[in-house]
């Protein structure tokens, strides 16, 4: 159970109520860096992503307790340990408070008011642990007139102007961005708590995170009063950008020219010196013609061949990869990108390697997501030094559940 000594966050203990893509991913990123993360689920309130509706392909698993599990959840909860508490019971909440006293971090992404109803507001938890870092993820944040709103990532995509500028409403995009920022802010807060001895409440709101990564269209709209509309692969500042159909089914080349050197290099590849104008204004005028030339050139090649030829000429170009392309991707393969992780009910399966490659303390998941309550007794023994009698009493009153 102890984290390995080559882990950056060795010795950091995290209690996570993080659910769905955003909450789970926040906890998993901390686990990959070596924190000991307890994923808390109620026996009667399992993680929603365990449900059959979230199964990938035909694969489902049923745990001995009867709770189902999916690859989706096993992937998102990678590296965490399963702790099952009944937060609806007094004994369960009291046990959580005891765990908070010996933990470093609490992660949650409940709707507004849930933690407060459990007596688990930041101020209340701070009384149990004055150095606690609590990280709260939400769609709209905890202040402002829409702070109580329910939101999926698709709602956020629409609200923040992402759908408007992308021409597409994405169902998880902002979840991952928010999780990365939340995990980052959590470790930053750990630094502060270590320096001051005082706890920190981190708030990662999807609307704030998305504003930060949508600076380009926001600045165009707010400072210049211009609605950028849907980008349609026309990247601002590029002399030419777009995707071009290639040989084969649904195969595309992505290409972006950043400056006149790029323009020149492309004209050479296409053998179109007539379009190699040498100044920006002329390039602007010749853009449609160059676009047509790229389209004709790309249509006669596979997306991989086209990308290789353009990269050889020093250009920023790539195939729009399908998931099969990604699976076979020589770059991913050479870096050992696909790793196999064990899960008691889903078996040994492929997952992506943790991208944070630190030379001395590389991030990595040791296991896929746990069974509900798989490590309850183990965690209570090591974190709280509970003995057999105390554990038996907690089981008797239903405050905890241990998967068998």
């Amino acid at each position, binding site marked *: 159970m102890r984290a390995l000594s080559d882990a950056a966050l060795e010795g950091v203990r995290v209690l996570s109520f993080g659910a769905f893509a955003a909450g789970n991913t926040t906890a998993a990123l901390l686990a990959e860096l070596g924190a000991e993360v307890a994923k808390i689920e109620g026996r009667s309130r399992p993680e929603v992503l365990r449900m059959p509706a979230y199964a990938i392909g035909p694969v489902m698993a049923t745990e001995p307790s009867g709770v189902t599990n999916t690859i989706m959840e096993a992937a998102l909860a990678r590296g965490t340990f399963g702790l099952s508490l009944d937060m609806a019971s007094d004994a369960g909440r009291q046990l959580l408070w005891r765990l908070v006293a010996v933990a470093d971090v609490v992660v949650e992404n409940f709707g507004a008011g849930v933690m407060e109803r459990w007596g688990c507001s930041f101020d209340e938890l701070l009384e149990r642990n004055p150095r606690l870092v609590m990280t709260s993820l939400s769609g709209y944040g905890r202040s402002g007139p829409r702070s109580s709103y329910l939101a999926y990532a698709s709602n956020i995509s629409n609200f923040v102007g992402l759908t408007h500028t992308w021409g597409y*409403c994405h169902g998880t995009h902002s979840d991952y961005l928010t999780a990365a920022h939340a995990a980052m802010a959590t470790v930053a807060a750990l630094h502060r708590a270590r320096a001051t001895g005082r706890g920190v409440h981190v708030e990662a709101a999807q609307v704030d995170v998305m504003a930060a990564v949508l600076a380009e269209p926001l600045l165009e709209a707010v400072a210049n009063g211009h609605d950028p509309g849907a980008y349609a692969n026309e990247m601002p500042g590029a002399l030419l950008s777009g995707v071009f159909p290639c040989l084969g089914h649904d195969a595309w080349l992505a290409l972006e020219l950043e400056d006149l050197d790029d323009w020149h290099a492309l004209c050479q590849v296409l053998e179109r010196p007539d379009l190699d104008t040498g100044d920006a204004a002329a390039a602007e005028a010749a853009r449609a013609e160059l676009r047509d030339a790229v389209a004709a050139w790309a249509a006669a090649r596979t997306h991989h061949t086209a990308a290789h030829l353009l990269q050889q000429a020093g250009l*920023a170009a790539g195939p*729009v990869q399908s998931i099969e392309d990604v699976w076979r991707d020589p770059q991913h393969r050479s870096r050992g990108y696909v790793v196999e992780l064990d899960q008691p009910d889903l078996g040994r399966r492929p997952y992506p390697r943790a991208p944070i490659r630190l030379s001395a303390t590389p991030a990595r998941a040791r296991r896929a997501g746990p069974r509900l309550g798989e490590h309850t007794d183990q965690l209570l023994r090591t974190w709280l030094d509970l003995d057999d009698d105390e554990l038996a009493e907690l089981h008797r009153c239903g405050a905890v559940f241990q998967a068998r």
Partner: protein
Amino acid sequence: MGRLDAEGEAPALAGVRVLDLGGALTAYAARLLADLGADVLLAEPPGGDRLRRSPPFAAGVEGTDASLLFAYYRATQRGITLAAGRPAALDLLGQLGAMADVVLVSPSRRQPLAGWDAEAGTLSWSRPDAVLAAITPFGLTGPMRDWRATPMVSYAMSGLMHRVGAADGPPLAPPGRQAWDEAGAYAVLGILAALWSRERVGGQVLDLSVHEVQSSKDWLVERYAVEGMDQWGRVAGVGYPPTGVYQCADGPFDVAAHQLAHWDSFLTMLGHPDELSEPSLTDPMVRRELFDVLHETIQQLVSQRSRGELVELGQRAGLPCAMLLSPAEFARDEHIVARGTLVPTPTPGDGTVAMPGPAHRAVPEALVPRRAAPRLGEHNREVYVGELGHTEDELERWAGEGLV
């Protein structure tokens, strides 16, 4: 949120010095580090960082200090110029490196860096106890380590973009520079973890590949292993009515009714209209069968309504729903204004522009006062003469040699 501390606290990275030689790829990481209180020194080529030439520009007019994108990414940082690829820069790099706890780099053929050993992935002049963070499109190893990308090309190759867009249209890249921003957030998470374990472990190298960060999302590897080649293709959205986007009298709004109880919430929002009173419609499978006719019926019901009012009613009834806004509408929204998501930010062009503020918040606050991004070479004298102890004459000579 919890208790407010009027005085605020020292930020997480107070006293940490960061040297950034990475340009556009490390810009978002540098911004996050500056927001956490680090002293970030941007060393850019004498001709200026690429983002200085990137729109949007103040008043839409291009100029060295006019890029609002540069003003956004480089706010609060100091800036010097240095031709860091030249062997003659080694001495100065060594002196700068001696002061840096964190060094950000993105070495490439186009952006060479003196002292960088591409085979070993090491820098000759950074301190042994420094965190050396290399953020590159594809990582420091592998057959495509020299490939070039832009945020659009990164997203295209990740496997994510192939699914994004209309079923009969091209794959669509997201607006802005999000693939690179997200990698920046991952990099800072890794840097903070490395700093956390620095006393125990010493310095280390972070090899962060944008490609790996992007491919790690949305279960690409997991899905391919059980489903094979893309079965989903490009899909406009997931779910069935009432999930979807509808045109109200004053603009579009969306509903994400992914749970069973959301149908009731939806009917409550609309005041239980007769058109949707058929009891069999409570079954999501029936609604899926009747997709087109239901979408049309709902569209009719909401076409004369105000979306703001519907969202209020829907949220009160427990329905995840939102307005679909443009960036300008988002920036003006009462919730975003009340939260202060956009903050007045000074620009190097002596103006002040409302820009996205910190991507996360914390209680107690530890806000870093926002300074204007540096003008080209603004801190040359302060750093080279004031901090490194060189003379004005030397500075002038280097300028003549094109070194600074």
